[in-house]
């Protein structure tokens, strides 16, 4: 299994050309403003606008669906609860807002190389150097976090295959223990590689 969640897709659209800092700021503003979204038609309208933005960015429906698919269970539970508790309008607002924010965040990561996103974060954190914060180190942590998502997903798939091959069924121990051991071992090896590539020398 290979994860392709939220990875940069090259392009020349206005979203690709926009500065990473501006896109991140817009995302923060949208996130903060989302708590004030109370009308279901407004949420759906914003999702429609966002889907239009995806079209402008040249990103197809399959990629869009891939961003939302991991949330389907969460959305279903959330929507069902709110339909039962407060009605379909509120359910649409809550579930729709989650979809809206995920799609907006994915649009940023799909149209911005990781390096530029991390650079923007490092720039924002620059003033905190005087209080001992190391923005470069935080940037590296973010990068490694993004990099490790497909690595851990692949590890999990391999462990699951081995679990099936050995007939250990659905035992969570048989899944979790080798996954954690292998993840820690790989983390160790990656740490060694970081040193070899001069990260510790900064």
């Amino acid at each position: 299994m290979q994860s392709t969640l939220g990875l940069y897709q090259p392009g020349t659209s206005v979203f690709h050309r926009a500065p990473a800092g501006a896109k991140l700021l817009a995302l923060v503003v949208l996130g903060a403003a989302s708590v004030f979204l109370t009308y279901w038609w407004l949420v759906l309208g914003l999702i429609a606008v966002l889907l239009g933005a995806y079209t402008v960015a040249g990103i197809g429906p399959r990629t869009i669906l891939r961003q939302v698919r991991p949330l389907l269970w969460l959305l279903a539970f959330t929507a069902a609860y709110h339909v039962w508790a407060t009605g379909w309008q509120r359910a649409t607002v809550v579930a729709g807002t989650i979809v809206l924010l995920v799609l907006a965040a994915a649009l940023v990561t799909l149209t911005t190389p990781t390096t530029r996103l991390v650079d923007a974060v490092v720039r924002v954190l620059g003033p905190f150097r005087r209080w001992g914060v190391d923005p470069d180190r935080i940037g590296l942590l973010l990068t490694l976090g993004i990099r490790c998502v497909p690595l851990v997903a692949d590890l999990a798939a391999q462990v699951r295959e081995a679990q099936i091959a050995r007939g250990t069924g659905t035992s969570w121990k048989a899944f979790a223990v080798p996954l954690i051991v292998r993840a820690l071992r790989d983390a160790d090896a990656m740490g060694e590689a970081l040193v070899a590539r001069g990260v510790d020398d900064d």
Partner: protein
Amino acid sequence: MLIEADHVSHTYGQGPTARTVLQDLNLRIEERRVGIVGHNGSGKSTFARMINGLIVPTAGTLTVDGLSTASKAKEIRKHVGFVFTDPDNQIIMPTVAEDIAFGLRRSKLPKEVVARRVDALLERFGLAGHADHPAHLLSGGQKQLLALASVLVTEPDILVMDEPTTLLDLRNARIIGEVVAGLDQSVLLVTHHLNLLDDFDRVLVFDEGRLVADDSPAAAVAYYRELMAV
């Protein structure tokens, strides 16, 4: 390039669980192509890591161009690149071009120069069409080429490679072998693919933490085959 080992030993752990993986190694390496072979656990990878300062001898001294790996590891790493067995552990950035550029993030080189160097390496290693692709979606051979390119972008003088072809099929192993043969850098190659060492200047054979043979490729490999046949 001059690598000198003076009574170098290395022991992992302490007390009853201590395990000595390298014993009293004395060596002087000046050649441009040096191969290192040995069975699993023979100490060859430990020695390779010592050259880059990733592991420090627990006894004796190892120097690279006169600099001790124990005290000048950071300086040495600017001149000694290291390629690991599993490229997945070495690739840090999400996309191919970003990973190659990662090594130059502190170089203070102008962006255009960095881009030029990255493009040249992408072209040289047949990765030009994959510049913006997710690195983890490359094939095994391409990942190892990327790992190699990511080290070469910093223009090291010496390249230490720890079994870079072990996880690859024969075709990709051959490609890596051809790339290594064409490098300007001095190369120390730890490998189980003995044919890669045919044109090397010298081959070292490790066994149970000791250097047991140090000869031409033909003689050293013949000795190693005999050793493994027992």
